């Protein structure tokens, strides 16, 4: 049987253990530590095979599992003093798993509440100017409180950085570009231009390509000519065909 590993994102070693317990149908109340330890180690190993970084917390719990397992192999001393009673590490682990499981079970409900809340909007408090002449600081506070509040605010801003920003790609059409190029040619007294001059204002590759297409198209209509100079530069010259559209 091929050993298949599903790389889930686990929220810590207890999460992983609960997953393994559920997957291998182990009884949490009567936990088979040997089986859990084996599965746990297998899982960690397979994560290693995938060259995934393993957080130290997972390794700590692995050591803990091995410790519990190995203790069980040792003969139990019959005479144990009652006051030196130490909580059975296995019981302790099971308790923790149960505790963790409880919170894990309520989170989907909370998540639902959260999503529902996002559908409702509030508005900001109305702004109004106050004519009351005071320094705006409540009597039970002084300027150091203000300073503290300020500091807190800066901290909060620093913590929330980087804030998400939205970028939009604006696509430039051939027609738009043609208007710009014609305008550029018509407002100048020159009849010859360096190719660079015309392509200068292109912000990205896409605009560059489109502008180039426009130039080729204009050349085919005789609006412009290309002159290939000796120093490998290309010159654009106004042609005999003058576009007589509305341009100011």
């Amino acid at each position, binding site marked *: 049987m091929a050993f298949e590993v599903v790389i889930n994102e686990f929220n*810590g070693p207890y999460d992983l253990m609960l997953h393994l317990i559920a997957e291998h149908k182990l009884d949490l109340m009567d936990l088979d530590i040997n089986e859990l330890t084996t599965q746990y180690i297998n899982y960690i190993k397979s994560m290693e095979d995938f060259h995934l970084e393993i957080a130290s917390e997972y390794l700590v719990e692995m050591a803990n599992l091995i410790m519990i397992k190995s203790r069980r192999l040792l003969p139990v001393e019959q005479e144990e003093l009652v006051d030196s009673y130490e909580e059975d590490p296995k019981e302790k682990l099971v308790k923790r798993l*149960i505790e*963790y499981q409880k919170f894990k079970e309520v*989170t989907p409900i*909370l998540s639902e*509440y*959260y999503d529902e809340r996002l*559908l*409702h909007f509030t*508005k900001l408090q109305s702004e109004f100017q106050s004519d009351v002449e005071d320094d705006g600081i409540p009597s039970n506070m002084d300027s150091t409180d203000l300073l503290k509040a300020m500091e807190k605010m800066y901290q909060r801003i620093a913590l929330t950085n980087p804030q998400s920003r939205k970028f939009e790609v604006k696509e430039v059409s051939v027609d738009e570009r043609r208007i710009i190029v014609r305008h550029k040619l018509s407002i100048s007294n020159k009849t010859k231009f360096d190719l660079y001059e015309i392509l200068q204002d292109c912000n990205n590759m896409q605009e560059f390509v489109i502008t180039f297409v426009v130039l080729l198209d204009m050349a085919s209509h005789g609006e412009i000519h290309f002159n290939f100079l000796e120093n490998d530069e290309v010159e654009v010259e106004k042609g005999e065909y003058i576009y007589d559209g509305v341009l100011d």
Partner: protein
Amino acid sequence: MMEYWISIIEGLLYMVGDEGLTVDQIASVTELDPLVVDEYLEHISNSCQTDSNRGIELVCYGGLYKFVTKASVHEYAAKLFALPERNKLSQAALETLAIIAYKQPITRVEIEDIRGVNCDAMLHKLLAKALIKEVGRSEAVGKPILYGVTDEFMDAFKLMSLDELPELPNLNNDEELNLFNEVAE
């Protein structure tokens, strides 16, 4: 008189927006009995809720009454504005919040004991989102900070009070139950 006060309260609630008002705040400015204010608020809430002509409803999160738009508005608001992607909370964030909400006041170490992972960065994140706050210091060694949830948390999860949190499932150990029975016998 009732209509008059209801209109005043509605106006005040509109004005304060997302800051919201407590029953006591309304009672103190209107000089009405808090119980009467309660009744009027209920009236406003019902009339918004039952009247399908209305686009807003009255909610009470963490004791703060405020107007919010109805859920049906969302779809159109999204067309009107490029609504920013509201940060989804990760499973880890939800877990941490749940632990704090149920167990507050609670220290970082206690949270980490339950989750089994380091929560330092997560607590910083939640503090930055103002979903939790420091509520004091524990008497334990080192006087660690105690955390609790904020009004913003109550708002974000539509909770009137912490009693409204879903009940934690009862997964108690059978052994403990047996032990309990034995004692009872």
